[in-house]
């Protein structure tokens, strides 16, 4: 794993999200709790809705376009045949870190 320091935890609002640009498209970073983050593809597999704009609740996000609900642990859409790709992310000493190797691995796959 190769962790990249993305931002301070305070840069993402509690129960909110921000996106980061990668060569493979945008990745959303969700802050589900005071010191809890998840990262996943920003685009909803249904109609491409921007998930970083959705309502974040528990460890899930709801797509703002048609209310598909994704479990951020697995990326699986609840009650739908669809999923988003998740990436390892963590909070350490007030900073948000994301694993860059997983972003590359996705391109190789």
């Amino acid at each position, binding site marked *: 794993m190769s962790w990249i320091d993305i931002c301070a935890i305070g840069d*993402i609002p509690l129960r909110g999200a921000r996106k980061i640009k990668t060569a493979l498209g945008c990745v959303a970073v969700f802050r589900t709790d005071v*010191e809890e983050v998840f990262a996943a593809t920003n685009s909803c597999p249904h109609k491409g809705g921007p998930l970083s704009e959705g309502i974040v609740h528990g460890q899930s996000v709801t797509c703002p376009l048609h209310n598909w609900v994704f479990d951020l642990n697995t990326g699986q859409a609840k009650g739908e045949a669809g999923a988003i790709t998740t990436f390892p992310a963590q909070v350490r000493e007030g900073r948000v870190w994301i694993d860059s190797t997983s972003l590359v691995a996705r391109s190789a796959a």
Partner: protein
Amino acid sequence: MTKQKLIVIGAGMATGRMLEHLTDAALDAFDITLFNAEPRGNYNRIMLSPVLAGDKTYEEIITHDDAWYAARNITCRFGEAVAGIDRTAKTVTAANGDVLTYDKLVFGTGSTPFMIPLPGHDLEGVIAYRDLEDTEAMMAMGTGKKVVVIGGGLLGLEAAAGMAARGVEVTVVHIMGHLMERQLDEAAGYLLKSSLEAKGITVKLRANSKAILGADGRVRALLLEDGTELPCDLLVMAVGIRPNVALAQGAGLAVGRGIHVDDQMVTSDADVLAVGECVEHDGTLFGLVAPLYDQARVAAQTLLGEAAVFKQKTLSTKLKVTGCDLFSAGDFADGEGREDIVFRDPARGVYKRLVIEGTRLVGAVMYGDTADSTWFFGLIQSGEDISEMRETLIFGPAFQGGASVDPLSAVAALPPEAEICGCNGICKGTIVTAIEGGASDLGAVRSTTKASASCGTCTGLVEQLLQLTLGDEFQKPAAQPICGCCDLTHEDVRRLIKSQELKSQEAVWQELGWKTRNGCHVCRPAVNFYLLADWPLEYQDDPQSRFVNERKHANIQKDGTFSVVPRMWGGITNPTELRAIADAADKYNVPTVKVTGGQRIDLLGVKGEDLPFIWADLNKAGLVSGHAYSKGLRTVKTCVGTDHCRFGTQDSTGLGIKLEQTLWGSWTPHKVKLAVSGCPRNCAEATCKDVGIICVDSGYQVGVAGAAGMDVKETERLVDVPTEADAIDWTVAFIQLYRENAKYLDRPYKWVAKVGLGWVKDKLSDADERARLIAAFELSQTIYRKDPWAEHAKEAERFQPLADLTLEAAE
């Protein structure tokens, strides 16, 4: 074997425990000298809080007295600091110049409380909470004295509670959104705050300290960033600790934030060890006592040449404040594949949350009932498979049956004086008395008490009271809860927010028995609206509980771009505004420019990143947000009225502009659209609006509850009034009544159909009630009548990507 010389620097809890282990195992192995800068030996520092609260005396918390040291042949040099260390010569120099040789040296220099370098932090009466002297300073405070504590963590709260128990007026100032944020989640933080407030402690959250004010060299008050002054006789800073590493650094040992040690507690010098709060092990510092004791044991074994390994373990926290039963353990962050189990019992003020990863319990937060905490902590530490008992796990070891949570508990918990029916001012006690007196169904309750006999929105609550009082004799009709997070309807939640004075989302989740950690996309926007509508000053709007359009102040389109609609008051514009709109459309490559049905211009296809900049440009021309995205006032359509039209009877354009200027920015249960037509020919199509006004020669006809969407419905006449001012008053009062009573996402026509136009008319015909509604609306508008675009344009970076990893990711 000759005795080795051991020198220990610092007589604290870690070194104290180490010396116990060492001398228990081999009394004569070492010739021990113990330095301590404080003029006393080891006492149980974590018991200072009970000393402060008066539950214990200092003598009771001394762990090692003179006799103990004498019995163990330890040479005590208390009140003496160490001046320097020469690791090559293996000597320690005392403050008085004595040079002592050592074979093994142990650092137990502990930590220093961190003092925020605010202006005035060196005034007399500004202290930390660390040692007996600090405790004594706090114990000197009594009834009539005021104390401010900066820091809402474990130590700060224990200090606050201890002094409050002595009659001191205590205010806790905390920078974060909830107390003890490192150990607790928001829900438990909310309950803790409520308990502390019940003890008379004032808690100020999200409060930034600016300066400490003094008079004659002594602290007088704390000044906050927002200008608030908190007068105090004593100011306690409890914001964290810093390891004391200066001596170790001077001796050339490897030091990070603390003194680096390996798994055997050995520093970068094989003959020098360190234990306690001064060490850094594997990147971690230590403040709680359990790992310190582990370190002490490992250090003793290492000194004796035995193999031992210090391993960091899951920690648990308990707050030592009487009446605040609180427990947290394990890990809540950074979870792949983690799930929550939440249990709340509002009647008993209980909250429990378990965090499960796969088949293991990894974290627990409990408040109000911590009886099972040891059991849960055991499960966390052992990592045993809990999948068999998962369904009933939260009920603890005694209960493995499977009863569900009682959906009536929120209503059961209400005090008798809680108001159930807002229309008629009927409280719970009156209704229960009526039911016990023979009113056995809804109709009977209505006729005997008038409860739920007016607008009917409290019907759900009255039915729950019937069920609670009569038990199985009453069959409650199935009500539709807001969502799976709770058992209450929208109307129930609205009523309870008012009667229980719930002023935060955490309060709603806890007191009304939410079954999830923090709601979902269905209930969050509704609860957020109810709170801001009922408590405009106390509750702060939460953007993260809003649908994207209201958070971004623009309408999201199917391709993820946004539309931007500037406000045109009453549909009136001018060449300057039109030029600014045209320029903005050019500058930001807006693909589509459309005239809307509400007499506005819509710029469609704007990129999210560009929003703050296009807003700033439009702001410069005097254009503000048109709120074309909000559950709030959208537009007031007008015709040209008496200005130009030969049929016009009144200044319909002028009234439309005044209405729009009064109402703009307000949040409502659903969107609200108005129109004002200058004559009954009705060119502004006012008869299908939420509020539509038709001007006639004799005055103004105010119609409400029209619709022209999925349903089409003509407005119903609310009132005819002679003057423009009356028309505005009635409109504002109607919208405020709708704001206070309607279910989230009910347009006015749906709400009026539920409560009846007669009820609305009765309410608004009462001049006092009308005045109250107008005043309440105006109060709310002091917060919300402002341009969100101007506010957001100042924070343009929030709209940009956090980072651009295009290069890194492509490597």
